[in-house]
C-alpha cells in the first residue's frame, strides 16, 4: 500500500508542490534567473498601476459577497422553509450558473448593458465595463455555490427548537433571529468565504467585462501574456494566493464546527403552509430565477441572430467557429476530450488516493503529507497553478517538459485544480464504511486490493459518479487553470470563448459558451441516468 501512496503522492508532488515551489522561487528572481531577493515585490508595491489592483480586487470581492450571500440566503430560505410550489424546479434553475464558464455572464451583460445594449439606460450613465459589470457577473457565477452551502446549513434545522420557541410564545421575527439564523451561522460564514475566494481568484468575468478596471487575476494574465514578464506574474500570483489561503483556512475551521452541529440528533423541520409568506417567497424565486435564466437566454438568442438587438434575423453564421478568432470546432472537441479524460482518470486517482489516506495502516507521516497536498488545491487559484506549470513544465532541464502544450498536461493540471472537492467527497463515502472490513479481509487471507475492488468500489459507486461529473463539468468550464498551458493543437472551448471575445466576435463567443452549457446539461442528464441504472443493477443491497 505504501507503494501506491507513493505513486499518487508523487503525482501530487510533481503536479502541485514542485510547480508552486518553483513559482515562489521565480518571484524572487530577476529576468536572467538571478536571485534578487524581494526586489520584485518592492517594485510591485512602488508601482501604483500594479498595487492598485489589490484594492480593486478586494472591493469587487467584498461587494459581490455582500450582494450574493443575502440573495442566496433568502432563496435557500424559500426552498427549505416555505411550502411554495415548484421548489425542485427553482433549485435546478439556481444551479445553472455552475454549468457555464464564468465568461458567459460577462458576454450577456455586454449585450444587455453594453455600449449598444438593450438596457444601457438603466445604469444611469455608468459603464458596464468595470466594477459594476464584474460584480453583476460574479453574483451570477457565485450564487449557486453560496446557495448549496446555505441550503445544507438550513437543512440541519431541528424541529424541536422551533416547537420549543412556539411553546414559549416567541414571535416569528424572534424565532428567526434566535433559532434560524444561529442555526445557519456557520453555513453563512462558510458561504461568505467561498464567494469571496471565488471572486478574488476569478479571471473570466473581469477579463470579459472589466474594461480598464484592473484586478489581481487579470494582472497575472497581462504580465504573463501581454508583457511576458514572468517574474512579475509570479509576484502577483503570490499576492493572489494570500487572500485565497486565508479564506480557505477560515472556511476549514468553520466547517469543522459545523460537523459538531450535524452529529446532534435532530428532528427534521417541516414547514407549514402560510399563504402570504409562500406567495412572497415564490415571487422572489421567480424574479431571481428569471434573472439567472435571462443571462443564459440572452446569450443563446444573441448567438442565433445576425446582430443582437438590431438585426434579429435568424442565422447560423456565428457557429462557423472555424472562421472566427478562436480555435474553431476543434477546440470544442478538445474540451470534450479533456473533460472526459479528467472525469475518468481524475476519479480513479482521487478515489484511490482517498482510499489510501483513509484505510492504510501505519505510515502516518506519509498519509498526513498526502492529505495536506490533497487539500492544497482548494486554496490555489487556477491562474496561479497555470503559471506555476509554465515555470515547471517549460523548464528545459525538466524531463517532463515533453508534456508541455499537450493534452496530457491539461488533464494533469485540471485534475489537480479540482482535486480537493473530489478528495473530500471520496473521504466522506469511505468514512461511512465499517472500519473493520480490511481487518476481516486480512483474517480471510485476502489481499487489500481484492476487498477494494469487490466491496469498497461498489459501495462507494454513487460518490464515485459524483466525483466524475464534478470533474467533467469543471473541466468543460475552466478558463483560469488552462489559459497559460494550452497549445495550438489543444485549444479548448472555454479558451475559444475568451479569444473570440478578444477579437470582437462576441456572438460566436456566446455561441461557444452555450455549447459548453448544453454539453454540461447533457453530461448531467447522462450522469443521472447512469446513476439510476447502476443503482438498480449494483445497489440492490441498499433496499431493505
Amino acid at each position: 500500500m505504501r507503494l501506491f501512496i507513493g505513486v499518487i503522492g508523487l503525482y501530487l508532488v510533481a503536479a502541485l508542490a514542485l510547480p508552486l515551489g518553483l513559482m515562489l522561487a521565480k518571484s524572487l528572481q530577476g529576468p536572467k534567473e538571478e536571485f534578487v531577493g524581494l526586489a520584485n515585490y518592492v517594485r510591485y508595491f512602488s508601482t501604483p498601476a500594479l498595487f492598485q489592483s489589490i484594492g480593486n480586487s478586494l472591493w469587487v470581492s467584498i461587494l459581490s459577497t455582500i450582494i450574493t450571500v443575502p440573495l442566496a440566503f433568502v432563496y435557500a430560505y424559500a426552498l427549505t422553509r416555505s411550502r411554495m410550489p415548484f421548489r425542485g424546479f427553482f433549485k435546478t434553475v439556481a444551479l445553472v450558473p455552475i454549468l457555464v464558464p464564468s465568461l458567459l455572464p460577462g458576454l450577456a451583460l455586454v449585450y444587455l448593458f453594453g455600449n449598444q445594449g438593450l438596457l444601457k439606460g438603466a445604469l444611469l450613465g455608468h459603464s458596464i465595463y468595470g466594477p459594476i459589470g464584474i460584480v453583476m457577473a460574479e453574483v451570477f457565477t457565485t450564487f449557486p455555490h453560496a446557495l448549496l452551502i446555505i441550503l445544507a446549513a438550513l437543512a440541519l434545522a431541528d424541529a424541536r427548537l422551533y416547537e420549543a420557541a412556539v411553546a414559549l410564545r416567541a414571535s416569528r421575527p424572534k424565532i428567526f433571529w434566535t433559532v434560524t439564523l444561529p442555526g445557519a451561522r456557520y453555513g453563512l460564514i462558510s458561504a461568505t468565504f467561498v464567494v469571496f475566494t471565488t471572486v478574488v481568484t476569478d479571471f473570466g468575468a473581469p477579463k470579459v467585462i472589466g474594461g480598464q478596471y484592473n484586478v489581481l487575476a487579470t494582472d497575472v494574465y497581462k504580465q504573463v501574456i501581454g508583457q511576458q514578464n514572468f517574474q512579475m506574474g509570479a509576484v502577483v500570483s503570490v499576492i493572489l494566493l494570500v487572500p485565497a489561503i486565508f479564506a480557505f483556512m477560515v472556511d476549514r475551521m468553520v466547517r469543522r464546527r459545523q460537523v459538531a452541529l450535524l452529529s446532534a440528533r435532530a428532528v427534521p423541520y417541516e414547514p407549514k403552509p402560510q399563504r402570504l409568506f409562500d406567495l412572497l417567497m415564490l415571487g422572489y424565486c421567480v424574479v431571481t430565477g428569471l434573472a439567472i435564466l435571462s443571462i443564459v437566454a440572452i446569450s443563446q438568442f444573441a448567438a442565433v441572430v445576425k446582430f443582437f438587438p438590431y438585426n434579429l434575423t435568424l442565422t447560423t453564421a456565428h457557429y462557423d467557429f472555424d472562421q472566427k478568432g478562436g480555435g474553431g470546432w476543434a477546440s470544442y472537441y478538445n474540451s470534450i476530450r479533456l473533460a472526459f479524460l479528467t472525469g475518468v482518470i481524475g476519479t480513479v486517482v482521487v478515489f484511490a488516493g482517498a482510499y489510501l489516506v483513509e484505510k492504510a495502516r501505519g505510515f502516518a507521516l506519509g498519509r498526513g503529507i498526502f492529505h495536506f497536498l490533497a487539500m492544497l488545491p482548494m486554496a490555489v487559484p487556477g491562474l496561479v497553478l497555470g503559471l506555476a506549470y509554465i515555470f515547471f513544465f517549460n523548464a528545459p532541464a525538466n524531463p517532463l517538459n515533453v508534456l508541455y502544450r499537450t493534452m496530457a498536461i491539461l488533464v494533469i493540471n485540471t485534475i489537480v485544480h479540482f482535486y480537493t472537492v473530489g478528495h473530500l467527497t471520496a473521504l466522506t463515502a469511505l468514512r461511512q464504511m465499517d472500519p473493520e472490513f480490511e481487518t476481516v479481509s486480512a483474517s480471510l487471507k485476502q489481499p487489500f486490493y481484492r476487498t477494494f475492488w469487490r466491496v469498497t468500489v461498489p459501495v462507494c459507486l454513487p460518490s464515485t459518479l459524483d466525483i466524475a461529473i464534478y470533474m467533467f463539468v469543471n473541466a468543460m468550464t475552466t478558463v483560469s487553470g488552462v489559459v497559460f498551458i494550452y497549445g495550438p493543437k489543444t485549444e479548448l472551448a472555454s479558451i475559444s470563448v475568451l479569444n473570440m471575445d478578444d477579437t470582437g466576435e462576441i456572438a460566436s463567443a456566446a455561441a461557444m459558451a452555450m455549447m459548453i452549457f448544453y454539453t454540461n446539461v447533457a453530461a448531467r442528464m447522462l450522469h443521472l441516468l447512469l446513476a439510476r441504472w447502476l443503482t438498480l443493477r449494483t445497489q440492490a443491497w441498499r433496499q431493505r
Partner: protein
Amino acid sequence: MGKALRREVGAEEVRRRVTTPYLRISRLTKKFGAFTALDDISLEIVEGEFVCFLGPSGCGKTTLLRAIAGLDIQTTGRIEQNGRDISALPPTKRDFGIVFQSYALFPNLTAARNVAYGLENARVPRAELARRVLELLDLMGLAAHGNKYPAQLSGGQQQRVALARALATSPGLLLLDEPLSALDAKVRVHLRHEIKQLQRRLRVTTIMVTHDQEEALTMADRIVVMNLGAIEQIGTPLEIYREPASPFVADFIGVMNFVAGTVVHDGAVRLGRTELACDVDGLADGTDVTLAIRPEDIEIHDAGRSAPNALAMRVDALAFLGSFFRADLSGETTPGVLLRADLPVEMVRRRGITEKSILSVLLPPERIRVYPGSAANR
C-alpha cells in the same frame, strides 16, 4: 484447566494438550506513547479451549486480542501459535478468523457471498465452495437466507453470517470481539448458547472479548480477568466467582460485600468487638484486612441460639427481586458493618422478616475471603 473441557475430551487428552499449549503469550507489553495498554501479559491457551477476556472498558482486553490478531503489533513480548512464533507476522500471515461487534459484513454481497469470501481465491473448486457455503449457512440455521443482503437480515442473523464467514476457512483460532454487545437482550442470551454449542462441536480454540460478566461466566472454559492492562486472575468461571484472587475481581464479578477488619491470630479476624473465624491465608497478626462475602452466602440463624461467626444485624431495607429478597443489613453490635444478603422468598415469609427486624446473621468461615489492606478505599 477448564472443567467443561475436562469432561468433554477426557483427562488423558487434556494432559497432552496442557503440556503443549496452542497459544502461548509471553511477557507481552503494548505502549501507546506514554500510556501502557498491556503490561507484561503472559498466558497460555490449550487447543479447543474457550477463553474469555473480561474486564471494564480500557482494561486492555481488546488491545490483547488485536495483538494476537496482528492488528496492533505489541511493543515487546512474544506470541506463539501452534508452536510457531507469530510475534511479527502481519494479519494475513496468521491463522485466525474474527468476528466484530459491528459484524463488518460486506453490505453489497449476499449472505452466501460473504461466507464464501475467504474461500474464493483459495483454489477451492466451485462445486466444493458452494457445498461448503451451504453447509456453513445450514450450520447457522441460515439456509433460507443465503441470497439476502445483510441489510435484509436481523441483527442476530447478521452476527451468525459473520460467524460463518469467520469459520469458513477453518481457522485454528477464532477471535470474537464483543460479538453480542450490539444485540438486544433476548437474542443475546440465545446466541450465547448457540455459539458455545458450535464451539464445542467444532472444537475450535476461541478467544472472546467481553465486558459482560454473565456472558463470560456462561460461555467460557476459562476467564482471564483484566484490569489496567494487567491480568488480575485466570481461572474457571467457578474459581473466579468462588475464589476471586483480588478485591478487584471480587468486586467486578457478581455482587460482593466488603468489610474492614484486623487479623487477631491465625484463623480469626476482629470486626469491632466481634471475632470472626476464617482462613486468613497466612497473614500476620495485626494486619488490616478486607473481608469479602457474597450476599447469597450469608445465612440467617435461628435467633437466640448463639453460634460462631454470628452477628446481630438489623434490616434497613428489603427489596423484592423476584426470585429472592435483597436485604440491606447494618450491625447492631458491630456498628459500621453494612452487608447485603440475598434471602429466599420462602424464608422471609416463614420468619416474618420485615424492615427493622433484628436477625442473627451467620457468615460461614469457608465462604469468607480475606484480602490484605483496608476496605476504606472501596
